[in-house]
């Protein structure tokens, strides 16, 4: 695939997997448009950063308008931005539920909607959302996070039907725990028992996730849509 003029939008690029993805696709010569709630020190002539909250509809519209004005197209969207909440449901305030759903569900939705509008222009687009294995394995302590990602999964499958006529595919990758900030405070025995639920009992890596995203973005993957691929041998 010739990536020189490909435009990819990745949300949540300041750190973690999003940052890794931004650097990975920059190394592949793509134009990368990223965003996060605060400034990002990623310095590359082909990288554009937008400071915004993914759940702020107006800011997302402005970001996508700006990208459209600059490049007249968006080829790929990776909805990576997400927040987790690890707590027993009996101890979870509604404000946390709202926050998690706003970022994970509404943020994903509004990016899908705005970016898909641009993708329809070229009758081409690939969208990758982020699911989690916490949803299929019904992981205790993750009720809100898993529920929000269940919504993302269902939305992914449904949007696949709505977007198909416009040449856009939309799929999701469901990572296992990856050793990032998100889980560094989770007790080791909890993580170990979680890893035991996977067919392959190890942490995931950023490379494992990129491998699935690359597959979804491939030109040849134009017949793959509405699919959720879980890593580590977890099944739904």
């Amino acid at each position: 695939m010739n990536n020189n003029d490909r435009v990819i939008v990745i949300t949540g690029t300041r750190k973690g997997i999003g940052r890794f993805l931004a650097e990975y696709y920059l190394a592949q010569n793509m134009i990368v448009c990223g965003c996060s709630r605060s400034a990002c020190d990623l310095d590359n002539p082909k990288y554009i950063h937008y400071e915004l909250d993914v759940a702020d509809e107006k800011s997302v519209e402005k970001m996508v308008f700006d990208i459209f004005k600059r490049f007249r197209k968006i080829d790929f969207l990776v909805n990576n931005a997400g927040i987790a909440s690890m707590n027993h449901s009996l101890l979870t305030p509604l404000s946390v539920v709202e926050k998690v759903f706003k970022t994970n569900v509404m943020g994903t939705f509004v990016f899908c909607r705005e970016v898909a509008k641009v993708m329809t222009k070229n009758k081409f687009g690939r969208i990758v959302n982020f699911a989690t294995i916490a949803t299929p394995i019904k992981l205790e302590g993750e009720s809100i996070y898993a529920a929000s990602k269940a919504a993302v999964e269902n939305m992914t499958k449904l949007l696949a039907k709505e977007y198909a006529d416009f040449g856009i595919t939309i799929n999701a990758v469901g990572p296992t725990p990856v050793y990032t900030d998100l889980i560094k405070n989770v007790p080791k025995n909890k993580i170990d028992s979680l890893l035991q639920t996977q067919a392959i009992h190890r942490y995931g890596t950023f490379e494992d996730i990129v491998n699935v995203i690359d597959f979804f973005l491939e030109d040849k993957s134009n017949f793959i849509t509405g699919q959720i691929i879980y890593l580590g041998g977890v099944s739904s």
Partner: protein
Amino acid sequence: MELEEIQRIIKTVVKDYLEAQDNYLDITSETVLFGDNTVLDSIGLVNIVIDLESTFLDKGYEISLTSDVAMSRRQSPFRNISTLADFIYEQLNEQ
């Protein structure tokens, strides 16, 4: 931007879309875009909305036709070209 200019842009966008489907209808201010007797299928309306947003953007105007205001009105602004033009005119004057 004047209301007449907005109407003209909408008519051009609708006409271009329909002609691409080999449909050569006369487009007037009363041409129905949504509901019974519409000239568009549901995908057609989506395309028109997207094309209008980007056409106005190219002219330097940011409009959003998927706003709460558009969707919550008792009478849909998408009913015909005239009502849609009125709605866009209102949005532009709020900016």
